[in-house]
């Protein structure tokens, strides 16, 4: 449905995006994830036909976004970073206007505007002047204008920014309900949002796609299997050696700061280690046994699993190795859900 091939864009001599390639299948929700300034907005603007690319092609529903701009514009709904609203208009007249310029026929207009109002929960605000709406409602009007003409492809640039938690959940549900019949690209820097809403994620950093997969696969693919955090008494170097000789262990590292652990004088001689095993292996028992055999006393052991946040930080900070970041965020993501 949406095909992006080797897309590049430079502003003057500064590259905004370089060689971005991805595909979005019909009915999918793709999340563009990246830190600020990574090139998410640029990519979306090119797709919406607002900016021309320096090189490369992008097609929506088979039409080139630049050469067949009008055909593409008929088939997309686009919510820019700041919702494009006329503050002096009422919600209803604004949506009617948008429906008109998007080419919705006169007979269809009332129904489609009404449907968009209902989908975005704007029923009790539709006669209010946009200037008087709160930021959350404005954002919803922005989403409503992107879907009012029922376009096959929807591009939403940070759709949940400025919403309160309840509205965020509503908007996410709204986006999920649009999938299937619509193809959607959303950009966000909120990590849990991606795993909740998107069927696939493209992580963008400094204008390049650094990873692309389903949220689950990304986690496992990039962090290996499960990991354990250990607190042991004894020589750290020796313990590392012992552990790294175990079959299935891909990485052993010391944790520089004890993090959430209480630090007491009793722990003078203690070391904190993190062990990461290869995908599909469960090494808890082996690790414990190996440590016992070597004469270490194991004070604490717990499983850590990488969150998307860890993946994101790894990919976007310039770390070469694929180790779990210093934060142990085992249930953070579930907690946010």
């Amino acid at each position, binding site marked *: 449905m949406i095909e992006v091939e080797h897309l590049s864009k430079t502003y003057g001599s500064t590259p905004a995006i370089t060689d971005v390639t991805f595909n979005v299948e019909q009915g999918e929700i793709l999340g563009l994830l990246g830190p600020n300034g990574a090139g998410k907005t640029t990519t979306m603007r090119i797709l919406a*036909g*607002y900016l021309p690319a320096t090189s490369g092609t992008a097609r929506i529903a088979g039409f080139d976004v630049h050469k067949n701009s009008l055909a593409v514009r008929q088939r*997309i709904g*686009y919510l*820019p*970073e700041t919702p*494009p609203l006329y503050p002096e*208009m009422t919600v209803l007249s604004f949506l009617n206007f*948008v429906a008109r*310029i998007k080419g919705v026929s006169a007979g269809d207009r009332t129904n489609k505007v009404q449907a968009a109002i209902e989908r975005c929960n704007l029923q009790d605000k539709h006669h209010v002047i946009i200037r008087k709406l709160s930021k959350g409602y404005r954002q919803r009007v922005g989403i409503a204008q992107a879907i009012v003409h029922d376009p096959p492809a929807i591009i939403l640039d940070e759709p949940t920014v400025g919403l309160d938690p309840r509205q965020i959940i509503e908007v996410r549900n709204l986006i999920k309900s649009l999938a299937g019949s619509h193809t959607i690209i959303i950009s966000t820097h909120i990590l849990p949002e991606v795993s909740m809403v998107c069927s696939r994620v493209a992580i963008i950093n400094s204008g390049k796609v650094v990873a692309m997969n389903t949220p689950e696969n990304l986690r496992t693919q990039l962090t290996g299997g499960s990991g354990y955090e250990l607190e042991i008494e004894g020589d750290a170097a020796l313990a590392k050696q012992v552990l790294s000789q175990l079959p299935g262990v891909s990485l052993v590292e010391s944790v520089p700061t004890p993090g959430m652990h209480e630090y007491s004088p009793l722990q003078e001689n203690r070391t904190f280690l993190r062990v990461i095993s290869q995908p599909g292996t469960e090494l808890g028992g082996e690790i414990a046994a190996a440590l016992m055999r070597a004469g270490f006393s194991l004070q604490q052991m717990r499983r850590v699993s990488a969150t998307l946040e860890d993946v994101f930080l790894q990919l976007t900070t310039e770390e070469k190795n694929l180790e779990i970041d210093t934060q142990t965020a085992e249930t953070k993501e579930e907690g946010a859900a």
Partner: protein
Amino acid sequence: MHVVLSNIIAIYRRELQSYFVSPLAYVIAGVFWFISGLFLVMILLGPDGILAYATAKDLEAQQYGVSLPPIDFSYEFVRAFLDSMGSLLLFMLPILSMGLYAEERKRGTLELLATSPVTNWAVAVGKLLGVLTFFITMLVPLLGFEAIALSGSSPPMPLTIPLLGHFALILLAAAILSLGMFISSLTDSTILSAVLTFAVILLLVFIDVIAKNISGPFGTALGYLSLLKHYNILIQGIIDTSSLILFASYIFLGIFLTAQSINALRFQR
């Protein structure tokens, strides 16, 4: 074609709607009515007004016992009034045109228009028609003033001359607004847009003064570009095709440049 037309109408309607709720539009209309009313009174009744002038002429004729050619009182009035309106427009219109695109740029709604299946042309034409309609609405009360002033004229004033004069006024406004719209599309500051428009209009108005100081064909050519010169020809009641073409060219040029500038805007960024 049908789609383009319906797009133009959509833009036009939105533009008009926004004037009805804009305090700025009401203030401009109010000031315009006040000043134009003042002009009307001054032209008719002021110390240098037409009435005083005619009385002086009459006295003169009686004194010397010669019969001077009669003055076409109503014609002089319409011409002088429209002439003053022309100068007033130079100050009012930049304020009307300043926000046409600058506001859209500032509010980010240009991104909506540019990603909708609407051509830049249709947007520019719709906007120009919208602001022109607002301007014509502003003229309506003036017709009342003039009707009162002319109702006393005897023999009755033929309608052709005031009609042509008002048509010329609208043409002049359309030309200025069209150029103002283009300038508005260059910036997202409304103030800057108004100041620049004012400067450009001033240049186009007084270009014949400059032209007179340049000899040769270049000077003559420059003289043809003057807006006010052609306006003055038309309000005298002379239908001059070259004047009509000049105004049409300015209007078209403004729309063309606007469409191009919006296009270029997307390429620069």
